[in-house]
Structures are given as structure tokens and as C-alpha cells.
């Protein structure tokens, strides 16, 4: 078994924490796991990407182009930026929430709705969710990222209670309840 999972979004969406969780769950489940991220200037709305690699033995911490099994897009258009990593068999987990890039905000560029529709066809399987909506019903807007993790967890073979334990150890204790709730709602989509 091997999973090459590319997770990406916009600084502040919780991509880094989410990929930490995936990595730890894999290790807890007896696999080798590595992750690598580029988060130079995350605070300033930049794009953030984490490579998570899980197998019996992992060498390179970086996924090769065309070889990601699962792409996890924390923002609706971001998967377009990483399409080179997708293979013909890739699954896409897509949070449909939009965060407008500066060029769109200033009216100089358009949000690429049309390209999104076209390129979704390149994936063998697409699972969409509205993470902010889930977070709202979980009672905390800040746990949207965990709904995405839930949707991803459903696709992987690791046990659900391992996920829940790792999440409990990684999020602030005051937000455990809402995080677990969002995770479960994402899982059950």
C-alpha cells in the first residue's frame, strides 16, 4: 500500500496542521510517513502546499509530478495550481469555499470558474464539500479544515479512532469538541 497525498490551500486555512495529522495517523498505524511543506510566507495569504507520503518505506519527502493519489484542495481554485501532480487515477477532495486572490479582489483578474468546471473532468473521482458550512454547524468557524480532514480520512484505510485520538492531541483543548464534530461531519459526507 502507498498513499501520495498532496494537500494545499491558502495561508491560514489549516493545511499544515491537517497534513501533520495525516502523517501522524499513518505512523501510529504502523507505516512510514514523511511530509514536506513550503510555507514561506503563509501568514500573508500566500499559497501553501504539503506533500504527505505514506508507504512501508518512504524515501523522497516530495511527491513526483503525475504521481499523487489524492489531491486535497482546501480552496476551490487551488487544485488548478497543482494539476501537474495529478495522475489519470487521482482522486480530488475539493472544498468549494472560495478565497479571492488579490488580482480578483482588485478587479484586474477573474476567478477561474470556467476552468474549474473543465478541469474537474480530469479526475477519476471528485468529492466536494462546503467546509465552512460544516464548521458553522459544528459551532466554530475555525474548524473548517478538520471537515476536509474528515473527508480525506474516509478514503484511507486507517481506523477512525486513531484519527480522533491524533486530532485530540493536536488541537487546542477548548476546541476538541468542535474539531471532532467537524471531522465526523466531513467523514460522513
Amino acid at each position: 500500500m502507498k498513499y501520495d497525498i498532496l494537500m494545499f490551500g491558502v495561508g491560514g486555512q489549516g493545511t499544515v496542521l491537517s497534513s501533520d495529522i495525516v502523517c501522524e495517523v499513518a505512523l501510529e498505524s504502523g507505516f512510514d510517513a514523511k511530509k514536506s511543506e513550503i510555507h514561506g510566507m503563509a501568514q500573508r495569504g500566500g499559497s501553501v502546499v504539503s506533500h504527505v507520503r505514506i508507504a512501508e518505506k518512504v524515501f523522497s519527502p516530495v511527491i513526483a509530478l503525475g504521481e499523487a493519489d489524492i489531491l486535497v484542495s482546501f480552496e476551490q481554485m487551488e487544485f488548478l495550481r497543482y494539476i501537474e501532480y495529478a495522475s489519470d487515477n487521482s482522486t480530488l477532495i475539493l472544498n468549494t469555499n472560495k478565497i479571492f486572490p488579490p488580482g480578483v479582489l482588485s478587479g484586474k483578474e477573474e476567478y477561474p470558474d470556467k476552468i474549474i468546471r473543465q478541469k474537474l473532468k480530469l479526475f477519476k473521482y471528485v468529492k466536494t464539500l462546503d467546509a465552512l458550512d460544516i464548521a458553522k454547524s459544528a459551532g466554530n468557524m475555525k474548524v473548517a479544515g478538520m471537515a476536509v480532514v474528515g473527508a480525506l480520512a474516509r478514503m484511507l484505510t486507517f481506523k477512525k479512532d486513531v484519527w480522533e485520538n491524533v486530532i485530540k492531541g493536536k488541537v487546542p483543548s477548548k476546541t476538541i469538541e468542535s474539531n471532532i464534530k467537524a471531522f465526523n461531519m466531513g467523514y460522513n459526507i
Partner: protein
Amino acid sequence: MKKVLSGNEAIARGAYEAGVRVVSSYPGTPSSEITDFVKQYKEIYCEWAVNEKVAVEVAIGASLAGRRAMSCMKHVGLNVAADPLMTLSYTGVNGGLIILVADDPNMFSSQNEQDSRNYARFAKVPMLEPSDSNEAKEYVKKGFEISEKFCTPVIVRSVTRLSHSMSAVELNERVEVEPKGLENNIPKWVMVPANARQRHIFVENRLKELEHFNNSSDFITEEINDSEIGIITSGIPYHYVKEAMPEASILKLGMVWPLPVERIKEFAKKVKKLYVIEELDPFIETELRAKGVKLRKLNRPVNGELSVDAVKKLFRKKTVKAKNPILNLPNRPPNMCPGCSHRGMFYAINKLKLFAAGDIGCYTLGLLPPLSAINSTVCMGASVSMAHGIDRASGGEYAKKSVAVIGDSTFFHTGINGLLNSAYNKGFSTVIILDNRITGMTGHQPNPGTGITIRGEEGPKVNIEMLCRAFGIKNVTTVDPFDVDECVRVLKEETAREELSVIITNRPCIFADRTVITNPYYIKEDKCTGCTACTRLGCPAISWDAKKKKALIDETLCTGCSLCPKVCRFDAIFQRGDK
């Protein structure tokens, strides 16, 4: 116990387990988190130094005092610390000493792509290059043993892909090291020419012994597979090689200087074609060719990162045909945050069309449109001295239309020296110190202007204005950077003056002081004329509604900094909560 740790966290853990007593560092991506992780270990004294030269000298002092010490920095930091390093090589150490340097192949967040391995050769000191988090921790521990055994500083080299990657690490307990006490040994520690001549001989001999040690050390792993192709590699590229060339025989080096030439020659005999796979400079390759090792040529670029695909391509192996990238997507460039205290001053600089000698920090982002107000960036501290050069080269003329722009941490790092030089040499330049009271760019570390130490203890807070006056500078003005008109007025006045001037801004970074965040602003649609003045601030909270031809504030992002109402000439912007 096993834990997933980043390379940086593992390095910090290694220092802890090795019984390190003192860590003095200056932040710099990708090395900054190491020292932030060290601070959780109460057994270690740690600090943010004001620059890398100071940090290494503090570590030398701690070593002289008989304790293990470490200093961490990014690659360009080692340039600043090169002076102590070169002579530290001669003195050697008392307590073990490691300099941790993190390179940034591909320049994810750096101004150049220099390869630090050259420093090991230059300074004639050993360099270790771990390839994953567990090795990072172990190499730090072994590094201290080597340091003490051979009486040498040891450089441990990381790269972005190691520092910011995570993998499993086996944790051990801390082992305290017996303090050796302050070493009073004049021929060893006082580098006057007569003593240094002797120590240079010691250094050359030490290098030979280290090479001998490396030849038989467990830093080398030899994996003999097919004898057709043999690859010498180290660090992160080892993993790319393992995946791209599973059939090849591999000699993986852990100590990349001095090279284990004997072991390499033995390996060379076992394979038909021998190659070196390394990132950046052909460091190992050049050295081995000079030593007469017959290597096959690869067409490897000396810039950027390697990858599994890049290695496959070097050996003409097939790679998966990836989907075409989608070009012309709206970008997400880094930008100053909403509420950033730098924005107003750049708006004013742009308005006056001043030439800005820039420096390195969040404010370098003032380069981007719509502010477009940075005209040069070289290295930390250079803005102040370059502005002086610009001024003196033109007999004072260019000083009337140019400024230096520097952040507080950068000012304390090396800007102070430049300013003292301008004052002493009677320059006319205008220096703007953007004092946001924190080292923003690298993750909000405190500095001498913050008033707290790395562990959050209160400390003295330097008074920049008094410091400038003590240099003999007469024109020192403090301005509110959110008051654009005032910034414009002061800039005009100070650039016109045929004297050195300093302008200091007085608003904190929103991460240095969260209490500055207040009620958001909003735009009254009927009052907005669509003049676009506020959108030219480049604030991420302000957007443009192209259909309505009006500006709009995202109130969830707005920090209530009060800058945009000051540039609105139609009084269309109001704060929530006041009517």
C-alpha cells in the same frame, strides 16, 4: 519512543539530548524554528542574538567556558558570521560547538542560493549533512563528539527540504556533560600571529585526521546493488536517488567535508560507471576530480532543487507524463497583512516618487504593485550604507530624491553600523526605520526593540531615537505611519535637508501587539466615488467591485488600522461602532 518531527524540531531535540548548555541564534528561514523549539528545554540557555556574528561569538564564549554550545542561522547568516568562523577554526573549542546552517536551494525565501558546503572547505572544518529528521538529531549529537574529540567547530548543514519536512524520530533522554570550566590556554586562544602560525599547522593536521576518521566512520553507508552504475550522494538528494535509481549501487556520505577519499576510491572500483548526485554547486564532484577519481559527467543544473524526476531525467529514465500546468491563474503573491504598519509609509514614498534603497524584511514586499516603492535589496543592513553611497556619489544631489528603508530587526542586525558610518562621514541621506517592534518576516521573533526576550521575560527596550541622537544625528523625527499626509510632509522636509536625517515609524506589527486590532472600517456605498485611492494601498481587506465601480472592505480581515480613511478624499470610509 518514536515521534514525527520536522528537521528543525529534530535538530533542537539533538541539542537537548547532547547536553547543550547555550544556544544563541539569529532567525532566518528555514532555520528559525530550531531555536524556537530549543526554548521549550529549560536545561538550555537560549537567546535571539542581534546578528549571526554575535551569535557565533556567544557560542565561542560558551565553548571557551567549557560547555556545549550551538548557533543556528540561514545560509546568508554564515556570511555575517564568517569572520569569527575562520579564526574559530584555528582556536578550536573547549566545550563542543556546532554551527547549524540551513541552505535554501530554489530560494523559497532567500536573496541568493549559495552553497554552504564551500564554507567547510574554506574554514577547514568538518561538515555533517543529515538526510532526514532522525539523522538530523543523531548528527547533532555525533557532531558534538567530533567537535570535542578533534578540537574543532562542526558545521551541520540543513536545507529547506530537511528543515521543513517531517519524519519519524526515535527520542532519547538528555545526557548531561561534565562542565570543563573556563580554559586558560594562551597559545590556543589568543590568535596573535605567533600563536596563529602554530595553530594553522594544527588545523592542517586536524583536517587530515578528520579525513582518516571519515574514511572509517559510520557516517558512510554503502549499498551495493547492480555494479553497472555507482552513485555518490548525501543529504536529501540521497532519497531522490533511492527512488529514481533503485538498481544502482550507492555510497551515501554523512560527513561531506573532509571527504572520505579512500572509501570513495574503493567504491569506485566496485562499479563500472561512477556518478555524483548533489544539489547546487558541484562541490563533491570538483573535489573528487581534483583527487583523480574518474567520474562520469551529468548535465546537472547548479541552480534549484533536485527531485526524483530530475534524477531520472539525468539518467534518461522515463518519467510519468504529467498533466500540463495551467498558466495565467490569478496568483497569490505574499503581501503585507491588513493592518501592517509599513503600508502607509510606502504609500507616501510612492506618492513622492522617491528612490528607495530597500532592505530585507516584510517591508521588502513594498516592492509589489500597487505600492511599487522599493528600488534595491542586497543584504541585511545594506539599505543604510547604500543610501550613503548613492548620496556621496552624487555630491548630495541624489540624497534629495532617495531614502533608505529598514526594519527594526534589520537595523539592530547591521543597520546600526551603516548609520554610524553615515553620521561620522557627514552624509545627507534620509533613513526610514520602520519600527514595528518585532522581527516580522521570519515568524515574529522578539528583538532588542520589543522589550521581551525569547522566553517572554521582560527586558530593556532600546530607544532608537536616543540612539540616533547619541550618534550625533540632529534630525530625528518620529511619525505615525497611518498618517499619510504627515509622512509625506516629513519625507519632503527631511530629503530636502543637506544633512543626515532619520525618520522612525511608531506603530507595532499586528502580531507584536494584538491589542491594536479594533473595530473594522466599512465604505458607505453612496459616498464612494470610485476614485480607487484606497485600492492603491494594496490592503488585502480592500477589494474592488468592478460591476458597481466601488471599493469594498472585507470586515473579517480589516484590523481597524485607520489608514484607508486617511487616503479617502470623499469621506466615504467609517469605523463600525462609531456613528
